[in-house]
C-alpha cells in the first residue's frame, strides 16, 4: 500500500474498525516473542492493544494455556512455515491467519496476521450439526416406522397371491383386515408427520381463544367416534388463552385424545381440563386417572418417536406430544408432565405471553 494513498491517521482508524486483531510479532535478542503492533476490536476485547502491551514479551501477555498452544505454531512461522489454526482463548474460539515478513536475506524478520473471533460461527456450526443429526435420526425413525405397516401390507398381499389358486374365505378375510389396519396405521403416521411439520412452519394467527368451548368441541368429536366409551370428562367453564386457534385445537385434541386413550382400561375413567396458578402464571392442565407413566422418563415424552408404552398395548405414532411441545414453544409457552405409574397423568401447559394470572373459577391443586 502506498503511504500517500492512505495517510497514517486514516490507516489507524481503519485498523480500529476491524473486528479482528491485526498484529505484528517479532523475536528479539532475548529469544522471546513480542507483539510490536496489535490493534482492532478483538485486541481491545482481549486487552492486547499496542498501548496496553507496554513492550512486555508475549509470554507475559496471554494466559499460560494460550501461550502453550500458540508458541509451537509461531515457532513454525519463524521457520518460514506459517499456517492457519484455531483454538480456544478465554472461552472464545479464535482463528489465527499468520504470514511471514521476510528480510533482505530471506530470513523471517517478523510475523504479521489477523486473529478472528469465530465463537459465534463455531456455536452456530455446532447447532447446525446437532440439528442435522436430529434430522437424520428423524428420517431414520420415519422410514423404520413406515416399514412396519408396509411389511404387514406386503406380506398379506403375498399371502393372498399364494392362496389365489385355492382361496380360503377365512384366510382372505383375515388378511384383508390386517391390510386395512396397516393402511390406517400408515395414514395416521403420515397425518401426524404433516401435523408435526405444520406445527413448525405455519404462520401464527394469534387471537383470544375460548378454550372451554374449543375443548367441548374436541370432546364431542371423540364421543361421536367412540360412542360406547364411558368416560367422565370435566371441563372448567371460562378457560381462555391467547394463541393460534388451529394449533391450540391440535394441542387439545392431542392431550384430551391421550387422556382418552390411556384411561381406556378403567371403568371409572375421568378426564379433567382446568387451570392452576404456578409460579405466578396461569397454566392450563389436562389430568386423567389412566395408566400414567414413570416420572423419571418424563423428559422423553416430548421427543418425536419416543414411546413409553408398548405399541401392542396402546397404539400411537410417538409424534403427538412432540408436536404439542413444538406448538407451545412456537407460542413462547411450554408444557410439562407429572405422573406416577398407575396413578394417571397431568399435562400442564401455557401459550406464553405475559397475561396476568387470574384466579381460576375453581382452584384445583394438581399433585401439590
Amino acid at each position, binding site marked *: 500500500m502506498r503511504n500517500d494513498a492512505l495517510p497514517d491517521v486514516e490507516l489507524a482508524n481503519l485498523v480500529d474498525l476491524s473486528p479482528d486483531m491485526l498484529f505484528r510479532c517479532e523475536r528479539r535478542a532475548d529469544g522471546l516473542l513480542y507483539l510490536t503492533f496489535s490493534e482492532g476490536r478483538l485486541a481491545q476485547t482481549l486487552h492486547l492493544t499496542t498501548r496496553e502491551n507496554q513492550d512486555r514479551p508475549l509470554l507475559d501477555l496471554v494466559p499460560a494455556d494460550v501461550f502453550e498452544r500458540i508458541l509451537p505454531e509461531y515457532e513454525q512461522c519463524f521457520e518460514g512455515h506459517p499456517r492457519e489454526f484455531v483454538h480456544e482463548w478465554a472461552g472464545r474460539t479464535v482463528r489465527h491467519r499468520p504470514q511471514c515478513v521476510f528480510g533482505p536475506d530471506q530470513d523471517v524478520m517478523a510475523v504479521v496476521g489477523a486473529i478472528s473471533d469465530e465463537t459465534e460461527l463455531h456455536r452456530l456450526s455446532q447447532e447446525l450439526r446437532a440439528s442435522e443429526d436430529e434430522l437424520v435420526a428423524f428420517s431414520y425413525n420415519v*422410514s423404520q416406522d413406515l416399514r412396519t405397516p408396509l*411389511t404387514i401390507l406386503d406380506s*398379506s398381499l403375498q*399371502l393372498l397371491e399364494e392362496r389365489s389358486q385355492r382361496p380360503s374365505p377365512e384366510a382372505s378375510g383375515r*388378511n384383508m383386515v*390386517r391390510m386395512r389396519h396397516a393402511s390406517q396405521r400408515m395414514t395416521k403416521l403420515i397425518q401426524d408427520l404433516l401435523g408435526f411439520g405444520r406445527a413448525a412452519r405455519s404462520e401464527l394467527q394469534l387471537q383470544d381463544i375460548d378454550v372451554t368451548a374449543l375443548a367441548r368441541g374436541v370432546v364431542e368429536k371423540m364421543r361421536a367416534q367412540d360412542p360406547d366409551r364411558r368416560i367422565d370428562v370435566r371441563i372448567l367453564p371460562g378457560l381462555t388463552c391467547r394463541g393460534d386457534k388451529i394449533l391450540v385445537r391440535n394441542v387439545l385434541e392431542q392431550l384430551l385424545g391421550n387422556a382418552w386413550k390411556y384411561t381406556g382400561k378403567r371403568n371409572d375413567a375421568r378426564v379433567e381440563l382446568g387451570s392452576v396458578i404456578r409460579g405466578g402464571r396461569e397454566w392450563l392442565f389436562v389430568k386423567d386417572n389412566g395408566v400414567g407413566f414413570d416420572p423419571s422418563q418424563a423428559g422423553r415424552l416430548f421427543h418425536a418417536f419416543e414411546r413409553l408404552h408398548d405399541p401392542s398395548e396402546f397404539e400411537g405414532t410417538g409424534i403427538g406430544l412432540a408436536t404439542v411441545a413444538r406448538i407451545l414453544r412456537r407460542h413462547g409457552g411450554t408444557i410439562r408432565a407429572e405422573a406416577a405409574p398407575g396413578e394417571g397423568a397431568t399435562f400442564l401447559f401455557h401459550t406464553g405471553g405475559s397475561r396476568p394470572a387470574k384466579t381460576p373459577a375453581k382452584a384445583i391443586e394438581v399433585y401439590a
Partner: protein
Amino acid sequence: MIRVLVIDDEADIAATTVEMLELRGYKAAYVTDVEGIAEAIKRHQPDVILQDAQMPGLDLKPTIIAQRGASSKRMVILVFTASVDAERIWRIVGADGFVEKPFAFDALVKEIESRMAVRAMHS
C-alpha cells in the same frame, strides 16, 4: 420338517410370516413378547429363529446368546428387521444372517435354506 420360531412384537407381522412359512411346508410358531422367548424355544424346539431387532425391552446381543444356550440344537438365528443398518449389526450381535422387512417370501425361504445348508456343512 424344519421348525421356525418367529419373535416379533408386531403380532400381524409375526402371524403373516408364520402363515407363509406353513404354506411353504415349515412348522412355524410365534411369540410377541421378550419374556415369552425362553418358554417358546423350549416348547417349539426351533431349528430356525427369526428375531425382530427392535422389541420393547429387548437387548439383542444377550438375547441371541441366551437363545443359543437355551437349546441343544445348533439353531440358525436370523435378525428380522425394519432397520436400515441390519447389514451392519447382524454379525456384531452373533446372528447367522438377516432378513430385512418388508421381505419377499421367496427371499426369506432362500435365506433360511442357505443358512441351514451352511450349518449342515459345519456340523
